[in-house]
């Protein structure tokens, strides 16, 4: 078989260079390396003992500042309660909060507030970040490993660390409207919106059922997941039936809606909520 003679390159190709580098690595380790046991294993063991100690320490602090002195696992303690009240799908005066390592995702949602862009925050940005992370070894194929010679990689790393830290911090300190504070605003709503008396039970429910975790109403609450401001929702005249159906199953009425289902509140309360929403025509003068 005739072999086409390869033109002689001055410089070896990157693949050849990589292979030569790895062969050199293997030879170096064989010649100058030290056995894993006991050298590296000693470091690993010390580190692992530290890890277990830290975990045990956290568990102890958690217990002995919550249930320990108070005989009540819902006591805040230094590291948070052991558990909160039992899950109750009926009363939703609860502000949803994920574990801390999801805070950055949680906060990303507030950046993409508008309904059309919510999915960017929930899946778009994280998916792109994940794909970039997976493809990293194929995007950065230079053989150089010294940080001082990889300015782009180092800047990217610094930016990633800073933005993750900022998002986590913002997520941790995000000011969630507490039900007790929200309900204090109800008389003010009645006055400003001139709500009729039959809308009052619905207003109170709205304040305590967790709606303000995502919706704003006359400036109260926080805007989340692209949920609209409901100050003047009544002007759209969606109708009681629509409101009840939407609350029962938001995604059945508005496909793709991330709003939770509130069917468990029961028909009476859903009706009260709907009356309140329909009566909300914005500030009246």
């Amino acid at each position, binding site marked *: 078989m005739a072999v086409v003679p390869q033109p002689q390159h001055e410089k070896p190709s990157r693949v050849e260079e*990589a292979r030569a*580098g*790895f062969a050199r*690595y*293997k030879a*170096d*380790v064989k010649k*100058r*390396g030290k*056995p*894993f046991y006991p*050298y*590296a294993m000693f470091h*690993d063991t*010390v*580190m*692992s003992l530290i*890890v*277990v100690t830290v*975990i045990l320490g*956290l*568990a102890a602090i958690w*217990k002995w500042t919550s249930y320990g002195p108070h005989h009540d696992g819902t006591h805040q303690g230094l*590291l948070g309660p*052991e*558990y*909160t*009240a*039992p*899950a*109750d*799908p009926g009363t*939703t005066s*609860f*502000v*949803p*909060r*994920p574990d*801390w*390592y*999801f805070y950055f995702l949680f906060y990303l949602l507030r950046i993409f507030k508008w309904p059309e862009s919510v*999915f960017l925050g929930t*899946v778009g940005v994280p998916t792109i970040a*994940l794909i970039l*992370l*997976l493809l*990293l*070894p194929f995007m950065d194929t*230079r*053989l150089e*490993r*010294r*940080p*001082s010679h990889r300015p782009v*990689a180092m800047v990217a790393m610094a930016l990633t660390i800073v933005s993750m830290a900022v998002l986590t911090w913002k997520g941790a300190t995000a000011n969630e409207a507490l039900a007790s504070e929200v309900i204090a605003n109800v008389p003010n709503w009645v006055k400003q919106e001139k709500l009729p008396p039959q809308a009052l039970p619905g207003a109170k429910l709205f304040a305590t059922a967790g709606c303000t975790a995502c919706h704003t109403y006359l400036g109260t609450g926080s805007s989340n*997941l692209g949920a609209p401001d409901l100050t003047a929702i009544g002007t759209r005249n969606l109708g009681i039936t629509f409101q009840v159906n939407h609350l029962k199953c938001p*995604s059945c009425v508005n496909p*793709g809606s*991330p709003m939770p*289902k509130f069917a468990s509140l029961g028909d009476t309360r859903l009706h009260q909520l709907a009356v309140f929403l329909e009566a909300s025509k914005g500030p009246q003068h």
Partner: protein
Amino acid sequence: MPYSRKPTRAEIRRERLQEAINFPLDWLEERSGLVGGIRYFLFRKVPADTNWMQTLGSAALTAFLVQAITGVILAMYYKPDPKDAYSSIQNITDHLTMGWMVRGMHKWGASVFIILMFLHMGRVFLFGAYKYPRELNWIIGVLILVMGMMEGFTGYLLPWDQTAYWASVVGINLNGTAPFLGPWLAQFLRSGQEIGADTLSRFYSLHMLLIPGGIISLIGLHLYLVIRLGVTSPPWSREAAGMVPADEEPVPLRPGLTRPVPRTIAAAQGDAGGSE
């Protein structure tokens, strides 16, 4: 063994003991090759300049093992049913002997595990250790990281308290906003229209069977590749394994500072014009 004199009792005892130890090892080695494998694992050479940052991987492994052990114990007392989940958690934390320790370690160990994975990933990035020939191990690492976070998500619902319930309601709804697969994924996680008993068993099964199984297999692959390919030296180390030898490197160390030419070479160059 032939003795030139009669062996003493102590010598005979030592020899018997040696045989007693060797026999099961030889038996195992003959049938599995495991003894040789472990010996290879322990005595394989690693670069002489590996440092403390390179303990983060095994630290993450330790944290994972803590999760596995405490998780198995928790599963003996936890009841994945909306009626009993909350009270079983209360019982474990407040009444069971050492229960607070097991649950506390599992809860806080999860955070430590995630932090260690991120730190380990950071050191791999800093070292450029994701480059040839370790690309595959980086990808496996990213998959482990994602699965680790999925463990966090599914485990969060299990105490069935308000925090757990409402965080999962929103979390599942968020999955639902994804185009195409989103609604299907939300439906799958919820296993129905509402979060309820079926959701809890589903999360429990994912949390203690499927995802940990996946993580364990991936950790196995990860460690296989670490052993096969070896760990990288710190790239800034003067004796980094695989570095181009200093005297072949053409670039100066710092601007204006070139490596001093060794005397013997200088002398040889001086002689170059001679009539040798």
